[in-house]
């Protein structure tokens, strides 16, 4: 309780708006919870030590002659400067190593689900592989079943990135030529936000993602939906948009499974309409934002790898965004 109170006081300002929370103070994953406890132990302990040092300094300056004499000897230094820290640090080191070792006790669930996340300039390619070996790509959004440890393979396609979903776990780097594995265990359902934590040039500030923790059934349903091909266009506008999507060359970079668009350079758009954001967390996902992104993405997210498409008429933009938003 005390702990929550301090927390509230400390991060009151941070609680202002929690749209897609991204905070280590609100753990919703096994590792983040362990670290949260560790944090509070150390903060409170450190706070006490800090106050102690300040108090002793004050006494050394202002205290009575006897106290000051007691403080002014090598034995005092040996005690306060060597013995005390040695004990505290030994305890802390062992505690820290035990917490670190706790990660070993959560082997990933054995249902064969594999998730690979590749950091790219400046978005996240997410590849799911199910128990049968079926695989599909999505982007900038990670779905997890609640309560099950899931191993996420982290790689990089270009420079070093770092995968950080603070509500779930600490960060782990994505390094070219290496595969790092992070075990995530979501403890509560809900949507949280994550962000690249290793400076990766240009639009590093705009490389975010969402983590959606769902109960198993919901997760399975999502997997089934996501693994399938794109839904056909449902309106005339969407049909025109689909044709334009192909003739304007969008398929060279983006894939829409079930169509001729098979590009692998940019994010897979097969179910773009069902995602929570556009541009790796830049914009909310709706038709207006989609139009804006197509035309003006270089202003919204400078240096991103997609050229701005200022070649479409207003009507064409309506068609395109209708098509893409329909890709649920």
């Amino acid at each position, binding site marked *: 309780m005390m702990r929550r109170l301090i927390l509230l006081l400390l991060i009151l300002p941070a609680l202002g708006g929690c749209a897609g929370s991204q905070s280590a103070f609100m753990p919703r994953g096994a590792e983040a919870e362990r670290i949260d406890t560790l944090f509070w132990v150390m903060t409170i302990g450190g706070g006490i030590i800090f106050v102690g040092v300040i108090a002793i300094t004050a006494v050394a300056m202002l205290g009575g002659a006897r106290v000051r004499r007691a403080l002014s000897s090598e034995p005092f230094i040996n005690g306060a400067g060597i013995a005390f820290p040695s004990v505290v640090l030994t305890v802390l080191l062992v505690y820290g190593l035990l917490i670190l070792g706790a990660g070993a006790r959560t082997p990933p669930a054995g249902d064969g689900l594999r998730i690979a996340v590749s950091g790219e300039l400046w978005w996240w390619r997410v590849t799911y592989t199910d128990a049968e070996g079926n695989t599909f790509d999505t982007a900038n959004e990670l779905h997890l079943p609640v309560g099950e440890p899931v191993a996420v393979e982290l790689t990089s396609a270009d420079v070093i990135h770092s995968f950080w979903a603070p509500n779930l776990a600490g960060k782990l780097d994505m390094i070219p030529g290496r595969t790092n594995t992070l075990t995530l265990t979501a403890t509560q359902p809900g949507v949280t936000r994550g962000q690249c934590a290793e400076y990766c040039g240009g639009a590093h500030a705009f490389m975010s993602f969402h983590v959606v923790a769902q109960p198993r059934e919901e997760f399975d349903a999502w997997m089934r939906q996501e693994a399938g091909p794109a839904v056909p266009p449902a309106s005339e506008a969407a049909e025109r948009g689909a044709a334009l999507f192909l003739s304007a060359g969008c398929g060279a970079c983006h894939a829409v499974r079930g169509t001729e668009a098979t590009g692998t350079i940019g994010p897979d758009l097969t179910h773009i309409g069902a995602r929570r954001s556009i541009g790796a967390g830049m914009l909310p996902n709706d038709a207006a934002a989609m139009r804006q992104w197509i035309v003006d993405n270089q202003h919204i997210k400078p240096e991103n790898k997609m050229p701005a498409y200022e*070649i479409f008429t207003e009507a064409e933009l309506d068609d395109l965004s209708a098509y893409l938003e329909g890709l649920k």
Partner: protein
Amino acid sequence: MAERERDSSDRSGYLRRLGEAVLVVLGVLLLGGTLFIWSGVYNIGASRDHFGIVTWLIAQLRDQSVNASAQGVDVPDLSDPGLAMLGAEHYRSGCAACHGVPGEPLNPVFTSMLPAPPDLYHAASDYEAAELFTIIHHGLKYTGMPAWPAIERADEVWPVVAFLLKVHREGPQVYDATLAEGQVDEPGTGRIAFENCVRCHGDDETDLIDDLVPRLEGQSAAYLARALTEYRDGTRPSGMMQPIAHEMSDDEIAELAEYYAGLTALAPASDLQGEDVEAGRQIFMNGVPETGVPACASCHMGANPQFPLLAGQPAAYLMGQLQLWRNGIRAETGYGAIMATVAQRLTPEQAQAVSLYLSWLPLPRDGGDGP
């Protein structure tokens, strides 16, 4: 020690006096200059030449400036005969009005300019190639010599340089010889007829004047119309095409575009084999996903008439255009901005490979199958 100090104080006193003298001289000059201008005594009319000394000074200033600017200009290979022919065509529409036909007397209107435009037959003996390039590219202040209309298109200047060198090398009759092949128009004046396009771009019977020029026959009308409109609006820079497009109305543009779109393309004459162009084919068909280069084929296969067909275009033209994109020169239009992004991800080797492939690739006729 003391002696040295006196030495230095003497020197500083001398310097101080020198400084005062300089100030007085400067003041007198400034005052005199102001009076001279204010009096209006100087005759600015072009009817009288400068004083000899002034002419000489201006000539020195000009030549030194041209020489300095020409330092660091790398002269490309100018031996390609098509290059000089292309230069001659531009000379006719852009330069001949003032500079006249090489070796023949000038129109008296222009000889009354001060300075009078020189007969360019001798130009190449007065200046080296890099200097000619500098003059044509940047123009000359106070002479009436304009800068190149699209200053970023330095690449377009070299054909004119090549032409001037050729005139100097082979005599003024070269000009007539190069023009004899096309229909002659009054130099630099009047409406540009369709035939004039043919002189450079060829048609279904005539080949291109040079590899730096694109093939137009069989190209989509929408693209041709857009290209000319962009030239006219100045969003696609070209010192050669902008003045031509400037003269054209929307109707003329549409008519011209339809005309060329209706022609059947000439088969490209290439001695390349299939394996020479395999690397380029890979890039064209599949792109280079690792470095973010999308497949060229996804836009340039004719599905969308706004994107040009590239098959059969000369490799030199394609490489030149890719270079323009890489330098950001063609990024002003919506379509250009897209291509600029892609071109910047191509290495020079990849750009060359894909250009070679395309120059070898037959143009799809009547919507026929691609490669």
